[in-house]
């Protein structure tokens, strides 16, 4: 068993994992920002009751 190769493979999969977590985080924050904070009037009107009900600042 080549230890260096194992370490390289491990760190490659760890980098892959971190990339995936970063993508999920950006999409997650984007969804919360869009529904909870975006200033567009259409989005505000549709999400209005949900913004109040989830304690986001509104109005």
């Amino acid at each position: 068993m080549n230890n260096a190769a194992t370490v390289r493979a491990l760190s490659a999969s760890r980098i892959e994992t971190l990339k995936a977590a970063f993508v999920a985080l950006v999409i997650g924050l984007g969804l919360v920002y869009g529904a909870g904070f975006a200033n567009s009037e259409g989005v505000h009107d549709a999400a209005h009751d949900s913004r109040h009900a989830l304690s986001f600042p509104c109005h």
Partner: protein
Amino acid sequence: MIARLLAAGLGAGVVAGLAVAALQHVTTTPLILAAEVYEAAQHAHDAAQAAPAFEGLRRTAATSFATVAVCIGYALILLAGMVFSGDAVSPRRAALWGACAFAATGLATSLGLAPQLPGAAETDLAGRQLWWLATAASTGAGLYALLRLEAMPAKAIGAALIVAPHFFWPTPAAPESTVPAELAARFAASSLAVQAASWIFAGVLAGLVWRLVTSDMQEPA
């Protein structure tokens, strides 16, 4: 990996979001509708005061859609946090992450900005949103440092990050709204409970769906 994470977040968020939407329908929404009656009376002479953009079933659908979007976001944020810090994703651990997230985005923020009914007196929106986002981020980072890092200086910085935003509370609005205090108090409590439920549901379901979508993997990532 990316596809599994997104699938778990999406699946968990949709189910959690629909459950929270049902909860909102019987807890917060009736209070919002009641408050709008007072808001309309308050603005009776104000021609610019428009009726709500959505009514009836369309309004319920729009609210539910927004809630599902937020819950998908919550599920993805929790999954990303667990994967990022190398935790094994499980429903129990995800529920704990959700509880900490609620402490950051619900409890810490409500000290400076209590959840408000429509028609409550309010100050400039952008300033309140900025404080809310900064406080949630700072408290979240502070909790992580306090609970997950071993070095004492890191814990001290964590505690400072949790306390610091409260030296910069937004200026409260002059108390001049006509919404009855009893309604407002019930709403503030319900709103926090609904937000707590959203984080916990999103977390538990993310843990459960993650098990499903990774059941074919030899080693859980």
